[in-house]
């Protein structure tokens, strides 16, 4: 034990240059840490799409179980894309342009109460409450392949009823040649609509024979439960042989019309997105190939099938048409 007042021997005293270097070392270590943290943190921030300012708004209400009356005969038995992937990775520009945005931000959508106006060239135009609509048709589960125009795909067990059943009920007139669909327009519920990335509201269309085709589905659920907001609650279109963007979400209007209606992506980039948008490995998107796709969850790309594998059922609809021209 060193006695107080006794100076340590001279040999124990740290030489002054070394003493100064120790302080310098501590200082440099601190600056090094700050520099690496600053540089690394900035890079992480840039990688995150600088989304710190975005307010997260996940859906509060959990999807509830829906009664499934029957299994659709057209279902594929390919392995289903996990629920988590189906509900966290999709495009729904009404909530942002990133594929993770809808799951993060769709909590502001209120899927009830909800009405759908069905009008135009029909004998019985009407505004239908969604719960009333659900009572009209037994719900079927249909496991469909979903091919996005961006060359990725999923297998999704939808729950819904054929669009044709609804159209027959409102009795189309002989002038009804096309069906035009409209998404809700409400920038408060759909914050992505506050910016004009697309011409809001989102609109889509089908030829009447496509709309009446038994594969064409109005979906109200997936995986046995009501649609999560981010997947187009409470009512969306599913046309499995067409690219995903034809599947308009959160529908408030269905109008039967005589002339081919405008469609949102076609308006945005006419040379990239056609009215028909049938899945076709032989017709590339101008900026990428459509010959192959990545099934979500798989490593290797797989070949894309004509009409997304539904050619047998739907190719007849397009007999005699040049699908390069009508892409």
């Amino acid at each position, binding site marked *: 034990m060193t006695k107080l007042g006794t100076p340590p021997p001279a040999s124990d005293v740290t030489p002054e*240059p070394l003493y100064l270097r120790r302080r*310098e070392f501590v200082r*440099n*270590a601190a*600056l*090094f*840490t*700050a*520099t*690496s*943290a*600053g*540089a*690394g*943190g*900035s*890079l*992480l921030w*840039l*990688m995150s*799409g600088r989304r710190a300012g975005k307010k997260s708004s996940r859906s509060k209400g959990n999807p509830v179980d829906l009664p499934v009356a029957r299994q659709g005969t057209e279902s594929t038995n390919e392995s289903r*894309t996990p629920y*988590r*992937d189906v509900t*966290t*990775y999709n495009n729904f*520009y009404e909530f942002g*342009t990133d*594929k*993770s945005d809808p799951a993060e931000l769709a909590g502001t959508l209120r899927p009830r109460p909800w009405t759908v106006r069905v009008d135009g060239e029909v004998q019985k135009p009407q505004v239908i409450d969604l719960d009333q609509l659900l009572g009209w048709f037994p719900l079927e589960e249909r496991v469909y392949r979903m091919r996005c125009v*961006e060359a*990725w795909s999923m297998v999704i067990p939808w729950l819904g009823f054929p669009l044709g059943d609804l159209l027959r009920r409102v009795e189309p007139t002989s002038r009804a040649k096309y069906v035009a669909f409209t998404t809700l327009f409400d920038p408060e519920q759909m914050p992505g609509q506050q910016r004009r*990335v*697309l011409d809001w509201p989102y609109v889509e269309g089908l030829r009447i024979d496509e709309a009446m085709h038994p594969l064409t589905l109005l979906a109200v659920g997936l995986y046995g439960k009501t649609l999560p907001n981010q997947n187009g609650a409470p009512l969306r279109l599913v046309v499995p042989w067409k690219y995903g963007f034809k599947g308009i979400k959160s529908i408030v209007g269905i109008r039967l019309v005589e002339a081919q209606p405008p469609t949102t992506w076609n308006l*945005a*980039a006419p040379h990239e997105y056609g009215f028909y948008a049938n899945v076709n490995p032989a017709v*590339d998107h*101008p*900026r*990428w*190939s459509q*010959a*192959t796709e*990545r099934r*979500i*969850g798989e*490593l*290797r*790309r797989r070949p894309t099938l004509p009409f997304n594998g539904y050619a047998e059922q739907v190719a007849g609809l397009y007999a005699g048409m040049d699908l390069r021209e009508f892409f």
Partner: protein
Amino acid sequence: MRRARPLPWLKPGVVVGALVPLGAILLRAWRGELGANPIAQALNQLGLVALVFLVAALACTPLKTLFGWTWPIRLRRMLGLFGFFYGLLHVSTYTVLDQGLDWRAVWADVTKRKFIYVGASTFVLLVPLAVTSTSGALKRLGYARWKRLHRLAYVATVLGVIHFLWRVKRDVREPIVYGTVLAVLLLVRLGTYLRVRLAASAN
């Protein structure tokens, strides 16, 4: 006593910071946190980080011009090389993981799709710059020739921004941000150039 190099913490700090994105991507991939389409996510993020470094390397000289800072110049080579490094990872992810080394598909993409063609050009232009980034190469080439060659960095970075811009489907905000920053940096250089020319003609 030998005077220590000034700012000895600067380069090591930037090196560690520059490796953070790679570490984050690997960690997220390992933990399955890259989302439903991890290859596309990694591809996009590596490309973005590459572009950030290319723009940062071009920011060094304008920072000296505007604020008189000389320390960024000492980082310039390293920033450019990190741009090449992340560009290489981006290109490897595309060819190996995304396309599964299907060289015919890769070739078709490069020749048929202008955004991939532009991206590939960016990378090809960076190769000679990375190769001649050493002090030895500078001596062998001579400063004037070396400098002329390394002006390709401007071309490559402009092409990198165009590659980004043409890739996005509709929301061009992010590429526009990078394009704007790059435009400002090039304007500062143009200003320097014009001042030098004016001064020369005044004499």
